[in-house]
């Protein structure tokens, strides 16, 4: 039997040590190999960028990125690892687990329960959309992209706009631009209410809009008529609104 490859995610060192001890104790019944251990969701995603695991055992309350958010990102890996939550006490999370039929262990963890959960889990099968919805109704709080082999997590509230280029989507934040491997349509579906579509190829974060004005097109342009542009917080870029989208954009901004 090939050992199950695991990642342990918990911000408390003794909690990780406890899981290690227990995994050793049940090694005869369930051989496992701990591929990596991380202290937050972000660290876990960084470590899992270039090594695959079958199962992730994760705590819920952690700095930088909690366990529920981590699960949303893990579901997008291919193949997706199975996720087992380990929590001390969290009524809301436990409710969400029951609702989404997700397995969870309560701290202090017992060896038998751990063994049972590992036997039951199904690595490689992506969770259903409604499961994820029950776990984190608010959806992802970060966008994930890879730059020069490093995983970058962009907090959603730092995003100013998303723009579709030829084959990819660029994210504009105050700090710069990043490339995403997702389609604009998917992003719009996931984060709908936070963004407004201003153009066929552009979604602007509603919270980032500072105002709008009418701008004269440059002389010599084919379409030199005056057009509406959005002014954004923190950056000096004007985002053109297409004539087709303008009525909707205007009503959203005024509402």
């Amino acid at each position, binding site marked *: 039997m090939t050992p199950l490859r695991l990642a342990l995610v918990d*911000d*408390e*060192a*003794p*909690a*990780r*040590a*406890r*899981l290690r*001890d227990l995994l050793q104790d049940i090694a005869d019944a369930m051989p496992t190999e701990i591929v990596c251990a991380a202290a*937050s969701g972000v660290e876990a995603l960084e470590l899992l960028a270039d090594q695959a695991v079958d199962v992730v055992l994760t705590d819920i*309350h952690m*700095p*930088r990125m909690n366990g529920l958010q981590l699960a949303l990102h893990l579901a997008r890996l291919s193949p997706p690892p199975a996720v087992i939550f380990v929590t*001390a*006490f*969290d009524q809301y999370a436990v409710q969400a687990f029951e609702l989404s039929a997700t397995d969870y262990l*309560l*701290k*202090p*963890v017992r060896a038998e329960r751990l063994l049972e959960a590992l036997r039951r889990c199904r690595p490689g099968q992506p969770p259903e959309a409604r499961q994820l919805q029950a776990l984190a109704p608010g959806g992802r709080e970060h966008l994930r992209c890879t730059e020069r082999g490093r995983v970058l997590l962009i907090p959603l509230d730092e995003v100013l706009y998303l723009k579709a280029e030829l084959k990819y989507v660029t994210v504009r934040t105050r700090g710069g631009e990043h490339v995403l491997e997702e389609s604009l349509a998917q992003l719009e579906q996931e984060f709908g209410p936070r963004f407004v579509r201003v153009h066929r190829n552009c979604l602007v974060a509603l919270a980032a809009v500072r105002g709008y004005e009418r701008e004269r097109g440059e002389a010599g342009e084919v379409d030199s008529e005056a057009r509406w542009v959005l002014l954004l917080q923190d950056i000096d870029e004007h985002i053109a609104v297409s004539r087709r989208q303008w009525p909707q954009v205007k009503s959203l901004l005024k509402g």
Partner: protein
Amino acid sequence: MARERESIRQFPETPAAGPEARPGGQRELALAFAAGLLPVLLLWLLLRYLGFDVGGPAALLLAALGLALSLAWVYRRGLTRSPAMAEARLMALTSRIRPHFLFNSLNAVLGTIRSDPRAAETALEEMAELFRALMQDPRHLVPLSDELALCRKYLALERLRLGERVQVQWDVDACPPDALVPPLMLQPLLENAVYHGIEPIDGGGVLIIRIVSAGGMVAMELSNPYEPRHDHAQGNRMAMDNIRERLGLFFGLGASLEHEVRDGRYFVRLVFPYARGGA
């Protein structure tokens, strides 16, 4: 276990020397008069201003009304402050430990047992003391030095769990160790500070505890790093309201509890009369 709890919940025949022995009574009397007479005085001034001639029997009537209001105030205050009521409130307000802390700490001890049995032993001893304090009679004031010793044990437990993430700076050289305080007055505030101000923050932070005494009062200030997006105001407010009410039951209007956010830190300030222990 059930029987033990029962015995703790029982009321002794003689009321504890706690809630009713508090300073600040005179101030309350003045406040009662102000509460009753001020509205009447204002009413009288308003009537005069509007051109009514308020004299003779009408003035007498107004004065009587004012006195009645004052008495009603005193009566209401007395009702909530009668020793039996105060005791019942104190029992109800008994500080409770967060389940989050309990189960995480037990898990941390289990995770330490094999690698460092001595550290695990110490941690269990500290937990025992913490729970003893939690189960003690909430109606007796305790010396501040006891409360501080308890807080240090609590923080040692958190350090086992969180390691270097929780840093503590004690500034208590000028603190009067014999000042009497309600039991578990500071510990829940520290627990709040760790839960809201240290755990969610990457890399943790420093808790600063300052205690000074001047002019017959003791002032405590506790601060922790603050990040607005980790603001779980509700749980925090519950703990604060609890402590504020307990302070009120022991010290009347002589005590206060305030909080503010300043320069990226969350401050809690406690002020109460410096009452010395009999011992």
